[in-house]
């Protein structure tokens, strides 16, 4: 590109970059800075440098370790579920049939509803006394007594996973559907002519060709799952069994007004997410390079 074209390109990109930097980079840098201080919310100007004290306290807090474990477990459980279900839905929506357009729109509804709204909705539906889910299950006979979906320390984690899967499967389905529809259709016909069974076609042709899309979708979704906040905040009973890293960071940042410590937790959260992303991309890249 000639120099003047480059200049023009920069001129066009500059406003967007500026907005990005001010909205994302500045808070990020400030958070990192604050994590080394003892800033309190009502007294921000009086913050002093305490270097690694926050981080040391963080690593020795058993609640933090529990949060990290909860978050990783949550991601490890919900992401595969969402991907499998999403793949299933995408395959079902791939073939044209009557009403497919309508069904595609309907499938998106859980994803479209703001999480706060759908979490509240599920909170009411899952209520142990007046919730409709318990009512239905007891009537049908699957349950003998209503279950405390969100209150019981054992159940609440899996309830949150279930609601997250409900909410995110449409997103995965749509991404995978896009991937499916961009696959070359003629080699599927060739496979039919070659006598390959439908099941074999799926595992030997569709899946390998879908791998790049799958990897991107998985990376996307894992990142989101590691940052989960709203569902946990609204649905859970506040105890340590369901606390995730974001909830922990918020608790210290906002509830306890301990901005320094909360920032340290936020920084650790970002580092963990970044680490996992890098791992993922490296594994993914090797796989994709293998194809080449």
């Amino acid at each position: 590109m000639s120099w003047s074209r480059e200049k023009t390109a920069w001129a066009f990109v500059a406003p967007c970059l500026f907005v990005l930097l001010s909205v994302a980079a500045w808070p990020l840098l400030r958070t990192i800075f604050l994590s080394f201080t003892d800033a309190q919310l009502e007294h921000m100007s009086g913050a002093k440098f305490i270097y690694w004290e926050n981080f040391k306290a963080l690593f020795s807090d058993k609640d933090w370790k529990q949060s990290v474990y909860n978050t990783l477990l949550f991601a490890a459980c919900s992401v595969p579920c969402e991907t499998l279900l999403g793949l299933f839905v995408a395959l079902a929506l791939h073939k044209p049939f009557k009403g497919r357009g309508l069904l595609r729109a309907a499938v998106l509804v859980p994803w479209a509803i703001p999480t706060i709204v759908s979490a509240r909705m599920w909170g009411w539906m899952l209520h142990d006394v007046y919730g409709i889910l318990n009512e239905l299950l007891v009537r049908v006979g699957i349950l003998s007594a209503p279950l405390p979906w969100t209150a019981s320390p054992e159940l609440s984690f899996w309830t949150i996973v279930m609601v997250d899967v409900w909410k995110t499967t449409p997103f995965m389905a749509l991404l995978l559907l896009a991937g499916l529809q961009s696959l070359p259709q003629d080699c599927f016909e060739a496979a039919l002519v070659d006598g390959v069974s439908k099941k074999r076609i799926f595992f030997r042709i569709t899946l390998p060709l879908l791998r790049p899309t799958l990897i991107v979708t998985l990376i996307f979704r894992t990142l989101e799952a590691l940052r989960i906040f709203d569902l946990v905040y609204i649905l859970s009973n506040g105890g340590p069994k369901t606390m995730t890293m974001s909830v922990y960071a918020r608790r210290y940042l906002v509830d306890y007004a301990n901005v320094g410590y909360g920032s340290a937790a936020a920084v650790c959260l970002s580092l963990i997410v970044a680490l996992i992303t890098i791992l993922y991309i490296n594994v993914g890249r090797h796989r994709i390079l293998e194809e080449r």
Partner: protein
Amino acid sequence: MKHLCRFLFCALAFAFGQAPLLAEAGVILKMTCRAKGQEAELCEAAIKEWARKKKEETGTDVKVEIIKLPQSSSESYAFTQQLLGSQAEDVDIYQVDTTWSVFLAPHVVPLNAHFSPEEMAAHFPVAIQSNTIQGNLVAIPWYADIDVLFYRLDVLEKRRAKPPTTWEELAKTAQMIQDYERRFDGNTRFCGYVFRGKSYEGLMCHVVEWIESFGGNVFSPGSLPQEDRVIEAFTFLSELIPKVSPPGVLNYTEEEVRGVFQLGEAAFAHNWPYMWALAQMSGSPVEGKVGITVLPRGKADRESVSVLGGWGLCVSKYSKHQDLAVDLVRWLTRHEEQKRRAVKASYLPTIVTLYGDPEVLAKNPFFLPISKALSTAIVRPAAFFGRLYPQVSAAVTSIAQSVLSKELTPAEGAKQLIQAVETFKQRAQSSPEDPSAAS
């Protein structure tokens, strides 16, 4: 048609452009207000009256915008902290909880100068005291909140049971009723005793009530904790789920408790009095069947202990319209307004004489026994712990939940609770930055 659309668009744009100019013609006050139950409507009605009067008397056009606070008081606290901590000029009046006084002190206008000593003496002394930090009245009390025991008149009568006076009696009666209803009346959803079990400030009030009513002595600064009393209290707690209370109670806040009780699915509910007016409204499934009494005691020879909650109004130091704001605050907390709120929605007034007012008592017969509890109510140690209080609250509620869900034995729970509170007490006392001092 195209021209018409263009004209309309320009006209609209012009009109919107003028809006800020128009607004500057009058004064806008912003106020935070809780929206639980009927609070928001009551507030708006009162404000309308005040604005009208103001216009009549002085000709100034004042608009008051209400910012609705979240239902959870912990959330509201976070919101208020952020605004005041950043010295925002946006909000003039805040509705504040009694436990926030320490934090509020450096950010508000001291109201002593704006209320006469007679006016201040009209309120319950404990209400004024809990809102005073270093001699400054940080917020003027608006209404009191004290936990009471609601019960179903018809259900207790059916089982020939009396309202319990001790926690043990409560557990027995509630269990018996729950058994009966579920097994013989086929109502599988019926619960004996519901309370606020989610890990937040509402549960903290319960825990203080339970522990102190058994004589645990844990929460007052400088007191000596009685471990065996705490174990007694925790034993009571550990046996609640599931025979007396539903397992879901661990996720209940005020509104969930009200939901269960108002739908008719509970025999006893442990909640704030605001529930009375709503439960007795026409159309409610339990209309006319609700009774209120003071909380049970730990033992027959002890006193019933209730935690004093309650909300007040304060004026932000950073407000641009302090005089107008103070005027509104005076209006909203005066005798007539507190009476109106009591009659209409059963909010407990903080002005003592209203507890003898026949109109108020006609609507809320339970105010009489409650008024005694009000004057003997205990205050949560928020002022003592200062900035650490939210953490104390979180730790205490977490332990309580573990005992409720049987993850900790009463003995273990008691040990952990006392240890945690003592540690926080030490931190609060030895903190280099005295949390109760204004910075």
